[in-house]
């Protein structure tokens, strides 16, 4: 009998081309984002990456990214949530009513809103998980119900303004903890008006962390015989990502510093990336989406996981609702309208599969950014909303076609 092939073999060295073909999707997304940014940077004569616009870009997309985190989990579990736009609008309205009409404190309002979002998600998840009603239908119903309820809550009017405290959720910036002499010294050195040292150092630390963690996991993978990236690719990818991070944080630091929302978004992204990739529950959600019956027969409580995925989505939609309301400084009945489509598009552009079991948090975030840059760039160019929609639709279609094509080529 022949020996098991490859047990004693060193990890396979892959050629760069072969590796690229196999990991086309991940690199494709990164390259597409860079290419699109470069394109708009040129055609907008540098407006895209001006500090004020970079800040805006982050603020504009923060609520989409926050919801994309939950949507990725919902989609990986093999479901979909069409109600997030409406739920987001409803929670924004609820926040406005609580603060403006009932004059409750910001803290109480925020907690209540998050709980309300969780309950809404749980209510929908209950029917989906335990009654096996297709998520498409339950959340389509939820989309109508909560759109109607926010109209009812607001009596068809906009409600605002919010107290400063609440606005800070979105429009606030993290105070610079470093002494001002350092800031002005750096400003002189870099020949700009001001430098927010916290922002700049955050960028440097983030870049450092990414490099360190990348190297560590690469070494670990190699030790366990996993396929590793060709070194040229690895260093190029890490280099580009780190430089991009430093660049963006630098731009932010020369404007008003680190937006509160960016901090929230960053922390949430890290938590969810860790949850999906490193925890038992996260792993089980992938198994559930990949093959629900096999997961169930492996002792996984598939119903409970589905339920939790929707409850979690509700909480994130509530968070996004408050960010959105705080940014506009009022709650409007139209808030969040059709936003679920942007969120879902971001997740699919990020490489998730409609059939479940496949997708990454980082992919969803990059997908959301890609859509955001497109929106922002086209708006700066003054392209009409009509063409914007067409272009976004085509980008989504192209991303998914690219996925399917890749998969068929590998099989």
């Amino acid at each position, binding site marked *: 009998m022949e020996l098991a*092939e490859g047990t004693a073999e060193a990890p396979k060295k892959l050629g760069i081309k072969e590796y690229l073909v196999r990991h086309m999707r991940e690199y494709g997304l990164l390259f597409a984002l860079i290419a699109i940014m470069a394109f708009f940077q040129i055609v907008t004569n540098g407006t895209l990456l001006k500090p004020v616009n970079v800040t805006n870009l982050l603020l504009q997309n923060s609520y989409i990214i926050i919801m994309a985190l939950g949507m990725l989990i919902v989609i990986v579990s093999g479901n979909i949530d069409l109600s997030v736009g409406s739920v987001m609008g409803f929670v924004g309205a609820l926040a406005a009513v609580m603060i403006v009409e009932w004059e409750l404190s910001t803290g109480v309002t925020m907690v209540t809103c998050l709980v309300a979002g969780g309950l809404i998600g749980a209510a929908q998840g209950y029917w989906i998980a335990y009654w096996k009603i297709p998520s498409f239908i339950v959340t389509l119903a939820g989309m109508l119900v909560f759109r109607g309820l926010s109209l009812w809550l607001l009596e068809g009017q906009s409600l605002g303004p919010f107290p400063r405290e609440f606005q800070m959720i979105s429009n606030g910036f993290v105070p610079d903890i470093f002494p001002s002499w350092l800031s002005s010294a750096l400003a002189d050195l870099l020949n700009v008006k001001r430098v927010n040292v916290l922002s700049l150092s955050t960028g440097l630390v983030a870049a450092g962390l990414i490099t360190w963690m990348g190297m560590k996991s690469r070494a*670990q993978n190699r030790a366990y*015989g*996993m396929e590793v990236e060709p070194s040229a690719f690895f260093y190029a990818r890490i280099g580009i990502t780190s430089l991009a991070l430093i660049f963006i944080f630098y731009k932010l630091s020369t404007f008003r510093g680190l937006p509160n929302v960016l901090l929230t978004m960053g922390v949430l992204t890290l938590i969810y990336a860790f949850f999906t990739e490193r*925890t*038992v529950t996260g792993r089980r959600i992938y198994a559930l989406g990949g*093959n629900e*019956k*096999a997961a169930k027969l*492996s002792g996984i409580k598939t119903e409970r996981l589905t339920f939790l995925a929707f409850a979690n989505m509700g909480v994130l939609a509530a968070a996004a609702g408050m960010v959105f309301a705080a940014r506009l400084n009022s709650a409007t009945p139209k808030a969040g309208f059709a936003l679920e489509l942007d969120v879902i598009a971001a997740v699919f552009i990020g490489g998730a599969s409609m059939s479940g079991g496949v997708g990454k948090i980082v992919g969803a975030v990059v997908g959301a950014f890609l859509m955001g840059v497109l929106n922002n760039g086209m708006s700066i160019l003054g392209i009409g909303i009509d063409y914007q929609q067409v272009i976004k639709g085509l980008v989504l279609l192209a991303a998914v076609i690219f996925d399917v094509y890749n998969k068929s080529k590998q099989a």
Partner: protein
Amino acid sequence: MNALLEMRSITKEFPGVKALDSVNLAVKQGEIHALVGENGAGKSTLMKVLSGVYAAGSYEGEIHYDGALAEFSGISDSEARGIIIIHQELALVPLLSIAENLFLGNEYAVGGIVDWRETNRRTEDLLRKVGLSEPPSALVDALGVGKQQLVEIAKALSKEVRLLILDEPTAALSESDSQALLDLMLELKEQGVTQIIISHKLNEVRRVADTVTVIRDGTSVSIMEAEKGEITEDRIVRDMVGRDMADRYPRRARRAGETLMEVKGWNVWHPQHSERQMIDDVNLTVRAGEVVGIAGLMGAGRTELAMSIFGQSYGRNISGSVEMKGAPVDVSSVSKAIKAGLAYVTEDRKSLGLVLDETIQRNITLANLPEVSRNMVLNEARETQVAEDYRSALNIRTPSVFQKVMNLSGGNQQKVVLSKWLFAQPEVLILDEPTRGIDVGAKFEIYGIINDLSAQGKGVVMISSEMPELLGMCDRIYVMNEGSFVGELSAEDASQERIMSLIVTE
């Protein structure tokens, strides 16, 4: 003697397997011809060759039909010549009416517009012929399985059938429905319709068949004729199973220890049709180090039994008790069953056993993730170590444990499923058709793994449709038929003839 159909030395090969090896089948005009053989003997393959599912040229040999060489390239070809197969799984659309189903794809229409009046009139004629009094507008969904079978036959009659092939037509029918169907077959014979019936129920075969052809291991081994008084159940059983048992099973010291698992008074009802009892008062014991077989035909309820014990994964209104080492245990959910020390290796590894799009490593640890994590955080290094251990212990042939399982062969996939359940540290493993669809070499390795488990003092329940496998591996065999255990044989007493006769005489 006037033969309607003659299949001459048909040989059909699939990669690595010879499914049919010069099979001969001669069916006379106007007779009922029974085709019998064990599961996997090649009956269905032969019928697929006949109906053109395997097109002419993909097999060797000749088919002579109605006095001429026939070369069908698809089902529509054979149907056009009046050869119609009714499969075990009915091909009706449940939410369409009887009339719509009868003329589906063959609509009676003028210029693309269906003539419903004529359609209904014809439907009534056809239904009368098969003895149904339902209105043509009744939905198929509302009919019982027996009547649905009759609708299928009516559909065949609507196409001017000359040779009607029924694949296990009574497998899902009650006794009275079966009798009605057999009567109809005899009536159709009077009207001159030639028929082939594939059946495991030998009493039925004896009742209707004029000629019997027995198929075994892909060859036709005997032909019996009713006229000459040759058709007896004994003879059929002997010919069906009469192969020599070569030394295909690794030896193992037999030593049954204390009782590990005991299932008492187990009853299960069908998940949808709550009046249908699927498992009827089953009692099962497994001792440490013992390999217990469950023999039976397809549809006997073996998988249903196993899955209902394993966390009530099948059925409803389940009653009965399960004890492990003498203490009653709760097996009402899969996680509880796993905790109680049970594992179930499914017969359907692709849809129930594996997450195909995931890696070998992730599949192996799936049923016991807490073991490779601390505070719910996965330790991937440890996970890889576990996967590597099972890869070498079970000889899973793959370049790395990070391969997706969908790229593995059937045998290696089965080893991944086995690894998953071994890693869950069970006391008793229920293996459902553990060697289905895998090659001979991998089969031998799986037998070896089963023997290792037994040597470690685990209890193994082995469900298999391959009787030689059960006889070669088991210390004790339960024989199951129609939801209950109809016999229990020790290894010394068991033989294929005895098992088969326990099944068919019930």
